[in-house]
């Protein structure tokens, strides 16, 4: 195993183990999302959702829940001196970016595994949309992981870190949200899923993921210099 791959595995394993033992982020994210569904039920005054309303509620909720996790992503590194340790270690710094993005991706997938079934039980009359929705979720999560890791690693060094990450992240993920809601809307339509422009939107999601993973890979080195 190359040193970078070893570092990647070590950091990712550390993050997942810490989360498993302390349960700092995931339960909060899941609880937040479920409560938001309840709020939407009353704010929209609907007991069942379909089409654009369903995809809007789902994605807005997932986005804000994801931001909770993104805010906390680098807090341990900053407080416990992890950044200095990475800087001292003779490893490629992008291993940290890759590991953190992977950790965030795992968080988001676990979050959705809990929250999307709850959403279906609350608002949808059939679960037929869920299998194709998995693909949209996975691609959108990859985009969140790339941009979220990049922004979070910068925001954590600022005075207003909890404020800054959502502030910068929201406009940045607008294209991602356009594509994700665009792909989900026909899937969640009343009479069963339809696949209107499904492939196109998946293509946009893939392009977004690719671009921001490359940007993150290219610039992450500069974020750790000191």
């Amino acid at each position: 195993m190359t040193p970078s791959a070893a570092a990647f595995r070590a950091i990712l394993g550390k993050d997942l183990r810490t989360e498993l033992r302390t349960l700092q982020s995931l339960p909060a994210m899941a609880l937040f999302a479920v409560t938001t569904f309840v709020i939407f039920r009353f704010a929209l005054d609907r007991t069942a959702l379909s089409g654009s309303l369903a995809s809007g509620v789902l994605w807005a909720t997932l986005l804000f829940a994801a931001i909770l996790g993104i805010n906390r992503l680098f807090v341990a590194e900053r407080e416990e001196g992890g950044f200095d340790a990475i800087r001292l270690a003779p490893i490629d710094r992008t291993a940290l970016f890759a590991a953190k993005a992977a950790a965030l991706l795992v968080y988001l997938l676990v979050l959705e595994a809990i929250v999307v079934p709850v959403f279906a039980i609350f608002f949808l009359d059939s679960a037929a949309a869920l299998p194709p929705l998995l693909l949209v979720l996975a691609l959108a999560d990859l985009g969140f992981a790339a941009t979220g890791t990049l922004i979070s690693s910068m925001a954590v060094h600022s005075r207003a870190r909890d404020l800054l990450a959502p502030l910068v992240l929201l406009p940045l993920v607008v294209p991602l949200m356009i594509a994700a809601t665009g792909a989900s809307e026909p899937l969640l339509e009343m009479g069963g899923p339809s696949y209107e422009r499904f492939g196109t939107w998946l293509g946009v999601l893939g392009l977004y993921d690719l671009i921001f993973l490359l940007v993150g890979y290219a610039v992450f080195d500069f974020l750790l210099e000191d």
Partner: protein
Amino acid sequence: MTSFGSGLRTLSIATVATMALALSLAFFYAPLDADQGFVQKIFYLHVPLAIVALLGFVAGGVFAVLHLRSGDSRWDAYSYVSIHMSVIFGVAVLVTGSIWAKASWGHWWVWDEPTLVSFLIVFLMYATYYPFRYAIEDRERQARYASVFAITAGAFVPLNFMAVRMAESLVHPRVFATANGGLPGEMMLTFLVSLAAMGLLWTTLVKFELTAKSASGQLKRLRRALDAPAPDGTSRVAPEVS
């Protein structure tokens, strides 16, 4: 130390002259639009502003790349001032666009005009540049992170334009064909002169701001050399230009 002030006078005069020419062409030479009449003249203001603002954002990203590659803080100052000026131009784009929308479609804001909506999102993205930058205290780190922001946002711009345009379910009738063929010669000429005038205006304002920043940086250094504390209220936020 370089002076940013050189050539500023010539540039300012050229800007004023071109701007005057552009405005007189727009009002006296370019024909009235058959469909929209006089209101369409705002086109010569709105579209060049938007193009120059977007190019300024791109320039900010390019300067940011140069900054990260060379570590020279001068490029960071260029990047900052480019984005700063383009955000100001962006406000003007949104205001003129809104006026035009009211005049020709009857609403201050229309969601089915993808270019306008994309521009709004790009503007909102770059508006977060300031709180982002100023929340980072260490000067050197601030410069580096701001450059990373400028590059990320630069990659975001084309993607955003694409996504917003694709979200458009019904194709709004374009007021002006994008191909040159759609624009009569007189209008095209006026438009190009207006574009040049706007570009010059942007460059002049950027140069003015850089000059002012470099002067205040020199003043600060002189004060420090004289061991005189800086008076309260001096900006801690803008990048230092040497």
